[in-house]
């Protein structure tokens, strides 16, 4: 059985790698996108000026401002009062404003902190909001355990658009294995090659296992390619040591592979409803595009209602987990909730795909 699966995997890889159209979409396009991202966001971290007024003046609020200042993407500029802060914002001198009320309480940041950003500058608003959010979350967690003094240590948040886009491109690259899976199954069915193989001792399980294995290998090649190009154009994962960075990269690969399994499962489902290869590819994009745009691939979903909807897409779990790992240096264990969601999606979608495939082919 294993020999048959390996034979089918090799066959699938050869047919994919020799087909220029598939090769373009699966490998060349993500790499090309990553190069463009690199060109657009190279030069390392862009620093955005954020004005602030600290009405609290307490030690905690000062630490909070220091933490923001120490993050790589923000330059904190003090103002005396709210009016002067707003005026500076209107003049375009700062990209965002932060007002800390008297009685600042990290656990009730939504009552004691006001933040406004330049919504017309997508990159700036995203950077400022994400950084403030990350540090506020860190503060709230620390204070709830009454370890706030440990905040003397600087909080490192390596947020920049490059990191953000690397995760998006990786997620996109792995998701599109859906379309190659759907196209592959539909093609095997239309051309009769699957029927022909079914007259041999090969079982449908061998066939699907070969498809899954080749899909994972292609996804792994995609992930390595995206990371390699990303590294070349300036991306650096978070990590205190080189070993930490390496472990974080491996963790991100692992998460990406879970998304690949889910994508292969969705490909099997799409193929079941497609009339032919072209139809399968067409339907696939109707699935991939919402997964990308509502799954937080290129940006955080802002609308609260759509943010809830986004949990319906496995890409959401993948993007949040990989961003936590690569942007905030979170260990794999701390994103276990996202991993559990993604693993459940992968298992359910793959099982549904297998059941439908078997029903249609036996």
């Amino acid at each position: 059985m294993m020999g048959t699966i390996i034979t089918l995997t090799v066959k699938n890889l050869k047919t994919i790698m020799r087909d220029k159209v598939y090769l373009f979409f699966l490998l060349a396009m993500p790499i090309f996108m990553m190069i463009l991202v690199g060109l657009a966001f190279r030069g390392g971290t862009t620093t955005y000026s954020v004005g602030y007024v600290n009405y609290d003046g307490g030690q905690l609020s000062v630490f909070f401002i220091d933490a923001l200042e120490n993050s790589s993407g923000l330059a904190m500029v003090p103002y005396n009062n709210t009016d002067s802060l707003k005026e500076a914002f209107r003049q375009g001198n700062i990209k965002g404003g932060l007002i800390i009320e008297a009685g600042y309480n990290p656990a009730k940041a939504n009552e004691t902190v006001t933040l406004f950003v330049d919504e017309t500058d997508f990159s700036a608003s995203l950077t400022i909001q994400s950084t403030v959010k990350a540090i506020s979350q860190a503060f709230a967690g620390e204070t709830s355990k009454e370890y706030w003094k440990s905040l003397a240590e600087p909080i490192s948040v390596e947020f920049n658009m490059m990191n953000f886009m690397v995760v998006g491109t990786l997620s996109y690259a792995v998701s599109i294995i859906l379309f190659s899976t759907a196209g592959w199954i539909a093609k095997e069915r239309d051309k009769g090659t699957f029927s022909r193989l079914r007259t041999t001792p090969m079982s449908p399980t061998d066939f699907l296992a070969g498809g899954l294995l080749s899909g994972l290998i292609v996804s792994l090649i995609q992930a390595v390619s995206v990371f390699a190009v990303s590294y070349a154009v300036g991306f650096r994962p978070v990590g205190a040591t080189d070993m930490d960075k390496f472990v974080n990269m491996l963790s991100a690969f692992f998460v990406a592979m879970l998304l690949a399994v889910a994508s292969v499962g969705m490909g099997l489902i799409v193929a079941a409803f497609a009339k032919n290869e072209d139809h399968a590819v067409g339907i696939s994009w109707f699935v991939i595009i919402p997964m990308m745009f509502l799954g937080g691939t290129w940006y955080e979903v802002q609308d609260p209602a759509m943010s809830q909807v986004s949990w319906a897409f496995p890409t959401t779990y993948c993007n949040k987990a990989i961003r936590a790992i690569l942007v905030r240096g979170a260990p794999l264990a701390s994103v276990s909730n996202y991993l559990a969601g993604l693993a459940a999606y992968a298992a359910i979608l793959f099982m549904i795909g297998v059941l439908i495939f078997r029903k249609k082919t036996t």
Partner: protein
Amino acid sequence: MKEQQYAIEAADLTKRFGNLTAVDHVNFRVNQGELWGLLGPNGAGKTTTVRMLCCLLAPTDGTAKVGGCDIRKEAGEIRKLIGFCPQEPTVYDRLTGRENVKLMGQMYRMPKAELEKKTQELLEKVGLADRANDQVITYSGGMKRRLDLIMALVHDPQIIFLDEPTLGLDPAVRRAVWDFVIELKERKKTVIMTTHYMEEADELCDRVAVIDYGKIIAEDTPETLKEKAGKGDVIEMEFTGSAEAAMEKLKKLKFVKTVSKLEDHLVIVAEAGIARLGEIIRVSTQAGITVGRTRFHENTLEDVFLHLTGRRLR
């Protein structure tokens, strides 16, 4: 393969798709080492029958045994015994010819050295050795068909299904495929071949079953089928006018075996019909029809089909 008298036995084998009965309670037996043909027009049920025998379709009713194994219960065993060459070239365009053949052998877990040897041997036999390492997408239709054929044979199966193996091929390639099939027959392989080319069935098959609208309407050796349809020459005569009277008068002639009407033709099978053509035309003219262009040839399986169904095979 289990010990049994017949390579294949079909018992009331039936396949329905919704309201359409594609194969309707067919019964037949194929002997070991026999080349058995299933002859019929497009849509008659040939391919559906073969797909059921190859365990690609489940029968709606009835069953069949292939190599002594029941197609309903022992599909796994049957798959080890058979080789299947489908109607359309079914190859991987992005693999090379050699890779395609080896892929099929690997599915049967053939030892590597044996597979290499057998693949090369077959590629040489069908004249593809020079192009064996090119991707199949660069092959002509005839080359793909030859490749298709050897993909079904690489594991040396005992029972081989060839579904319209020469469909759409030019005469030279068709002849090459015929030679290959004859060689299989000489090697005592059981071959089940569907075709709608009567000359193909006539030339190659030990026995032929004629299938129409899902039913087998005749089965025997080509010679016997032709004899049953009326041994002799076949005269096809264009006419204008009412044919009924002429047909009645022609049927009364002692040397005339059968008379059929086909649109604006009368098809007459007659002993020594060519020598008696003058008499046939005279009787027809006297019966009130005007005789136009007239052709004649020896009896073929096409005429058998015409005799059985009143329609041409294609």
